[in-house]
């Protein structure tokens, strides 16, 4: 009997655009059942790393293994929530139909969603508190509401692994609380969640583990180990307002 590995492993991930490396040789590994933040300055390759890990953009080198399997073997267990600015908000689609998309991965080709799928989509909408908006077109919602709808879609996928790209950008405090509460519930159910994030103030409250990246890896592991002034300063290449950084000016 082989032991099933309960980890997500990034191995030597390297990505470049037209010869410029934007992610360089990133390797790290995390146990499943954790909420993991991917943190770094603007343009550090956070989203790129996530997309390359999922095989959504070409990479030069490296691979990702989830529970010992290559990524293409576990695709249906992956729920991905894109950055808000990647979505065409004028698309003719209603809130409830966006959530219904989450049931597609488990419906074979040629098969239409059934009544039971629609009911499940509504339950997912209720979980994010958006059921009253189910018949709205998505552009009629606020940023935070839109993000909650996309989280509902991810919930509808019944996935084991969640990848969220900047879910907290430009949303209201209430929506942010709803989203982080649900992410923590998912984590408590044993799901593994990766979140690209750039607001350092809440890192310690939100995440169990951290990936600190600025092209290269500057730290990976439990938040209390990685989220240290010296790591942060090296990664951000600047003083970030922690007391120890008030040193001599050069």
């Amino acid at each position: 009997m082989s032991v099933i590995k309960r980890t997500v492993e990034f191995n030597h991930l390297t990505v470049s655009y037209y010869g410029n490396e934007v992610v360089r040789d990133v390797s790290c590994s995390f146990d499943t059942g954790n909420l993991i933040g991917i943190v770094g300055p603007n343009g550090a390759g956070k989203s790129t790393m996530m997309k390359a890990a999922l095989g959504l953009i070409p990479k030069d080198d490296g691979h990702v293994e989830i529970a010992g399997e290559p990524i293409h073997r576990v695709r249906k267990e992956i729920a991905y929530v894109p950055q808000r600015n990647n979505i065409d908000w004028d698309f003719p689609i209603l809130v409830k139909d966006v959530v219904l998309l989450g049931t597609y991965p488990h419906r074979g080709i040629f098969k239409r969603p059934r009544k039971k799928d629609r009911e499940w989509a509504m339950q997912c909408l209720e979980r994010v508190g958006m059921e009253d908006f189910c018949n709205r077109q998505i552009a009629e919602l606020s940023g935070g509401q839109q993000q909650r709808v996309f989280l509902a879609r991810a919930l509808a996928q019944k996935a084991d692994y969640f990848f969220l790209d900047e879910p907290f950008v430009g949303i209201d405090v209430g929506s942010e609380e709803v989203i982080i509460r649900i992410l923590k519930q998912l984590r408590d159910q044993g799901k593994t969640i990766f979140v690209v994030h750039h607001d350092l103030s809440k890192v310690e409250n939100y995440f169990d583990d951290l990936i600190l990246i600025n092209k290269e890896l500057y730290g990976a592991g439990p938040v209390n180990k990685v989220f240290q002034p010296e790591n942060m300063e090296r990664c951000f290449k600047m003083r970030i307002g922690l007391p120890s950084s008030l040193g001599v000016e050069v």
Partner: protein
Amino acid sequence: MEFFQDLMAYEFLQKAFITSIMVGIICGVIGSFIILRGMALMGDAISHAVLPGVAISYMLGINFFYGAVVTGVLTSLGIGAISQNSRIKNDSSIGIVFAAMFALGIILITSAQSAIDLTQILFGNVLSVRTSDVIVTLVVGVVVLLAVYLFYKELLVSSFDETMAAAYGLKVRMIHYGIMVLLTLVTVASLQTVGVVLVIAMLITPAATAYLLTNRLSTMIFLAAFFGAASSVIGLYVSFTYNLPSGPVIVLVATAIFAFMFLFSPKQGVVGRMLQSNRRKVA
């Protein structure tokens, strides 16, 4: 009413009637996906790129349908190859490839001394449709409608959120090229109705009109097909009655329907929105 008597009496008119309705429907259906995926320019490119295919088919003595499909697909592959392997953006690579194909097509057609009339391919003449063309159009129509029906779920999710679709394992590249093939088929079927130059209007205008009226993709597709077919029928009637070229008239009818909805559609209409903001000011 003369038109309808003639419609009963003349076979060429019946053929024109059936062909243009089918073209209106399939252009509306595929056009819906073209505008939602931001591929309007691609539609224009493919329609021009079938020209060399038509010429080569004529030289080989085969139905122009086959050559057109081949050059249409080659064009979309060529455009993809340039934009993926260089820093040249998609719209620029479209411009490069489709102009080249169009130029090649014109040279082939003129130098072949062929019986193909360039004007007819460029601008269409639905009244000269032959029985074999009607059959091609009907077959294309069935293929396109069946494909959209069967793959509706996949087309919806990949058009709305391609990254999510790719993340859960959908072959989005295949879907893209599948749409390109359907687009080529639709273009070929439209050659005689509106011609190469104006196909883009039949793809975009009815679908854009529908887009103004609904918040659901399925409704949009039906409305676009309806507006496409209606433009064809009304256009054919006007062109026959007043002895005007069919393609341009059909296009202008589609444009007139668009203009009406642009001004008066309940939700997106410009007039309606002006009234609403006035009412708000009063209140």
